[in-house]
Every structure is written in structure tokens, then in C-alpha cells.
């Protein structure tokens, strides 16, 4: 039986082999492609429903409850309606770019799920550089967003697109540095291996600071509140997708939540132990963790105001970046000098260091310069 081996053969021996598939490689490929697409599309609908319901309850409302049982079909209705809506391309728009932008934004988000394990070995492609692939692919989406901002020939959209590029470029660095800490501890870049390395202890305990940094940077990267500057309702009307309607808008809407889902999945995989868990089947554990992370995002969105663009950049470069570097150094030192003590003794030490660093940075870190003389 063939394995989805992409030829490098550098898989670490400790990972048990994924279960064989009766039809071989192509069956595996077909099954998981369909599964990933179905998963993304259906989960995005579920995620939209959950966000609207939970957000509404946090705002002491009820949320959609009229369409279907408990309003479960609300997202379906939205999707059908948006799909059959008229598709407007502004006369002044750069037509090709305007058309391509949603596709460019949407494709990479789905591609991220190719390497996320749903259960042990249940993934489309167990790349040995999985996490690198995630980082590389997910940042392509910003190209699509900038294309949308540029191609619309709308000032609001352009501002939104510029903000997106600025934030992506800055937040990629702390994001990758935070991931490196996990990679150092796990000793592998493959997501499946990283999950298996968390058999006993999820990395959120080993890497508390790394988790915070990753979560913040990821929220900024996918433009969740409080970093949702590029479609800031109250400033830029609808930001980069101001000029989009109908199906293309639906794709951007999908991208927004698919990205949130992807980040939830990556956080669950990297820090919360992925599919690992007792009693329940692994895929259920995985889904549960994904939804938990997503709920935290919704919770943050319900509470926080939005930061400003210069504060966003300052936060990335002055706060997250040095902290991520320190975290990486610290983890590297621990892994190199004291590998035996890795799981248990390090946990309290790391928590203490994380708390200390946060306090120090809170004390001395300054956000931006505020006003410019004109």
C-alpha cells in the first residue's frame, strides 16, 4: 500500500505510520480533497452560525432563530441569497484584478487544511515541512485582499488593502518566531508529528508565552477583532470589499471565516494537542478544540475596541517581535541545555518567565507616536 509520501523521507521515526488506505494513494488523495473542501465549506457555515449566535447572546440578543430549527439554516439562506445576487463590477475597476482577487484570496485558505491532521495520520498530505507550508500559503491570501483593494478603484478599498499588506508583513515575523518555539520542542515541522509530540502535555503549557504571541499575531494576520482594521466598519465602510457584491463578496465572506477556522485549527494543532484526547474519537477532539479556539476569538471580538494602524505596527515591532525572539532563545536554551527536564519542570519556569516578560513589557512598552504635526 502506498503512502502519501512526497519523497523527502525525513519523517521522524517516532511517528506511527498513518493507516493504510485500500485503494492506495489516489483514493487517499480523492477522499481527503473532498473531505477538506466539504469540511471547510460546511464548517465555515457552522462557524458563521456560531459566531452570530454567540455574539448575539453576548450582546444580550438572541441571534438568528427563524430559519430552520434554531436558525441553523441561516447561513445557508445567506449563501443562496448572496450567490444569486447581482454581480457588479465598477466601471472604473481594473477588471481582471477585480475578478481574480476573490479566487486568489480564497484558494490558499483551503490549501492550509491540506496539512492539518483531523486524526492520527488523517490528513491530505503529511508534509514534513507542514507548518512552513501553512505559514507560506496562508500569507498569499493577503495578495488577494490587496488585489481587491487595488482593483476596485475605491479609496476606502485601497486604504483597506494597504492596511492589510502592512499588517501582514509585520505580523508574519512574530508569528513564525512563535511557531519556531513549538517546532524546537517538538523537533519536527510536520503537523502530525507536532500533535504526536503533545501526547502527554499540550504545548500551551510548555509554551505559554508562545501561545499568546501566536494567538495575537494570528488574530492580527487574519484581521480578527481587535485588529480588523482592513474592513473597519466604522472607518472604511466595508474596507477592501466595498465594491464587491454577489458571489465575489460571498467568497470574501467565506475567506474571512475560513481564515478564522484555519487559525483555530492551527492553534488547536500546535498548542492544544490537536486530535489527542481521551475517550472521545480523535476527530471529535479536534473539532471541539477548533470550536473552543474560535469561541475565544468571538469572545474577544465581542469585547474589544479596534486598534489604530500605527499602534498595530508598533505592537508588532515593539512588543510581539522582541518577546517572540526572547521566547525562541529561551526555548532553544531549554531544549539544548536541559533536554531531560523538558516536559514537567519547564512548565512552571516558563509560566513564570512569561508573566515576568509581560509585566516588564507592559511597564516599558510604548505604543506609537500618535499625532503628526501638519
Amino acid at each position: 500500500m502506498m503512502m502519501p509520501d512526497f519523497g523527502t523521507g525525513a519523517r521522524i521515526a517516532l511517528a506511527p505510520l498513518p493507516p493504510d488506505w485500500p485503494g492506495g494513494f489516489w483514493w487517499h488523495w480523492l477522499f481527503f480533497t473532498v473531505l477538506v473542501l466539504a469540511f471547510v465549506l460546511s464548517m465555515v457555515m457552522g462557524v458563521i452560525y456560531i459566531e452570530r449566535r454567540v455574539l448575539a447572546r453576548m450582546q444580550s440578543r438572541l441571534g438568528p432563530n427563524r430559519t430552520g430549527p434554531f436558525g441553523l439554516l441561516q447561513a445557508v439562506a445567506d449563501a443562496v441569497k448572496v450567490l444569486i445576487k447581482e454581480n457588479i463590477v465598477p466601471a472604473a475597476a481594473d477588471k481582471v484584478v477585480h475578478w481574480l482577487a476573490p479566487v486568489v484570496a480564497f484558494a490558499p485558505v483551503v490549501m492550509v487544511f491540506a496539512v492539518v491532521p483531523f486524526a492520527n495520520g488523517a490528513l491530505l498530505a503529511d508534509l514534513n515541512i507542514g507548518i512552513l507550508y501553512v505559514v507560506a500559503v496562508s500569507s498569499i491570501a493577503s495578495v488577494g485582499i490587496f488585489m481587491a483593494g487595488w482593483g476596485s478603484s475605491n479609496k476606502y478599498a485601497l486604504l483597506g488593502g494597504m492596511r492589510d499588506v502592512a499588517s501582514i508583513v509585520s505580523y508574519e515575523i512574530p508569528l513564525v518566531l512563535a511557531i519556531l518555539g513549538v517546532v524546537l520542542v517538538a523537533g519536527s515541522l510536520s503537523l502530525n508529528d507536532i500533535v504526536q509530540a503533545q501526547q502527554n502535555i499540550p504545548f500551551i503549557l510548555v509554551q505559554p508565552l508562545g501561545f499568546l504571541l501566536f494567538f495575537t499575531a494570528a488574530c492580527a494576520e487574519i484581521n480578527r477583532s481587535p485588529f480588523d482594521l482592513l474592513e473597519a466598519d466604522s472607518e472604511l465602510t466595508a474596507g477592501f470589499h466595498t465594491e464587491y457584491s454577489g458571489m465575489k463578496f460571498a467568497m470574501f465572506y467565506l475567506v474571512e471565516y475560513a481564515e478564522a477556522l484555519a487559525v483555530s485549527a492551527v492553534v488547536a494543532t500546535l498548542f492544544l494537542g490537536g486530535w489527542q484526547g481521551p475517550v472521545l474519537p480523535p476527530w471529535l477532539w479536534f473539532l471541539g478544540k477548533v470550536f473552543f479556539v474560535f469561541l475565544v476569538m468571538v469572545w474577544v471580538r465581542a469585547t474589544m475596541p479596534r486598534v489604530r494602524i500605527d499602534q498595530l505596527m508598533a505592537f508588532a515591532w515593539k512588543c510581539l517581535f522582541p518577546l517572540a525572539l526572547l521566547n525562541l532563545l529561551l526555548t532553544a536554551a531549554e531544549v539544548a541545555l536541559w533536554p531531560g527536564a523538558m516536559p514537567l519542570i519547564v512548565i512552571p519556569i516558563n509560566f513564570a518567565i512569561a508573566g515576568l516578560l509581560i509585566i516588564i513589557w507592559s511597564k516599558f512598552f510604548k505604543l506609537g507616536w500618535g499625532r503628526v504635526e501638519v
Partner: protein
Amino acid sequence: MEVVPDYIYPDREIDRAEGQVINDLKANSQPVIPDSDAWLDAELKQNILLTSVDTMIDWAQRSSLWTAICFPACCAFEFIAANGPRFDLSRFGMEILRASPRQADLMITAGTLTWKMAPNVKRIYEQMAEPKWVIAMGACAISGGIFASGYNVVPGYNHIIPVDVYVPGCPPRPEGLIYGIQMLQKKIAKKSLFHKEKA
């Protein structure tokens, strides 16, 4: 950075052009746009296949009416109240306010329309993607209300854009608005994609 004095008070050409647009619109839109509901009473005659597709589409359209932001005046607060924690339009999937008219389905014209505002409202209406609906909310939107005799007030939105449902009141209670929205939903349910083109 030195600011070029031009930017402090932009050229009056812009003002003049905008004023011209308003005057043109005022001159050209005195008659009332008739309520486009001849099809409403007509018996719907379709074959069965089309009807079931229509039913699906109508269901989708009426259960996710996203509102465009066009709230000039007082009635906006009753709209927000309807959206708020007590009456909660989000039950109908309507809590999404699209600030960009391209993505909106429903324009709730909450407030007095002045001639200065009229070109903007007309433009927003034209920017909205089909299918689109308009609810005239409140006395000012229906007839100009208490300001109808004012020198700058459009006596009713139906001089500018076609209106689907009229919700009287000054301002209507949120329940009244929700009732109007449900009437609009009924209207959408009766509408057929293919029939509308004939009408």
C-alpha cells in the same frame, strides 16, 4: 509637512457641481413613482419546477435581508431599537448592516429626506445590487410628515426611489417596523424571479 493652501478650502467648483446635481434632480423628480405592485395581486402561474426553485430562492432572499445604511434622521433610533437587545431583528438574520450598498438587499429609509440628500440616496439605491427592496419608514419617508411644507424637504421617498412597503408612524414603534419587514417578506415570497421581468 507644509499644507498647500488649496486643501484648506477645496475649490468651489465642487460645490457648484454638487449644487447643479441637486437642482437637476429637484427639477426632474416631481412626479411620484408609482408603487410597483401590479404583480402582487396577479395570480402566479408557473410550472412546478420553476416554482420550487423560486420557493427556495425566495426563502433565501427573505430570510437574509441585509440592510443598507441610510439613516438620515430620527427613525434611525427606532431602527436601532428594533435591532437592539429588546426587539432583536437578528432573529430574522437581519443584524448584518452592510455599510457598502453593493452588498445590501434592503434599504430602510429612516428619516426625512432633504433635497440636498436626495442625490446621495438615489445613488445608494442605484448602487445596491439587484434584487433590492425599500421600506419607507415613518411619516417623513412616506409623505414628508411634519416637514412636508419645508423648503428643503422631499415630500416622500417615492419621489426619488420606488418604495415597497410603507410603515406609518412618527417614528413607528420597533414592532411596527418588524411588522412592515414581515410584510415585505410576504411580498418577496409571492414574487417570482421570472414573473418580475414580465411585470
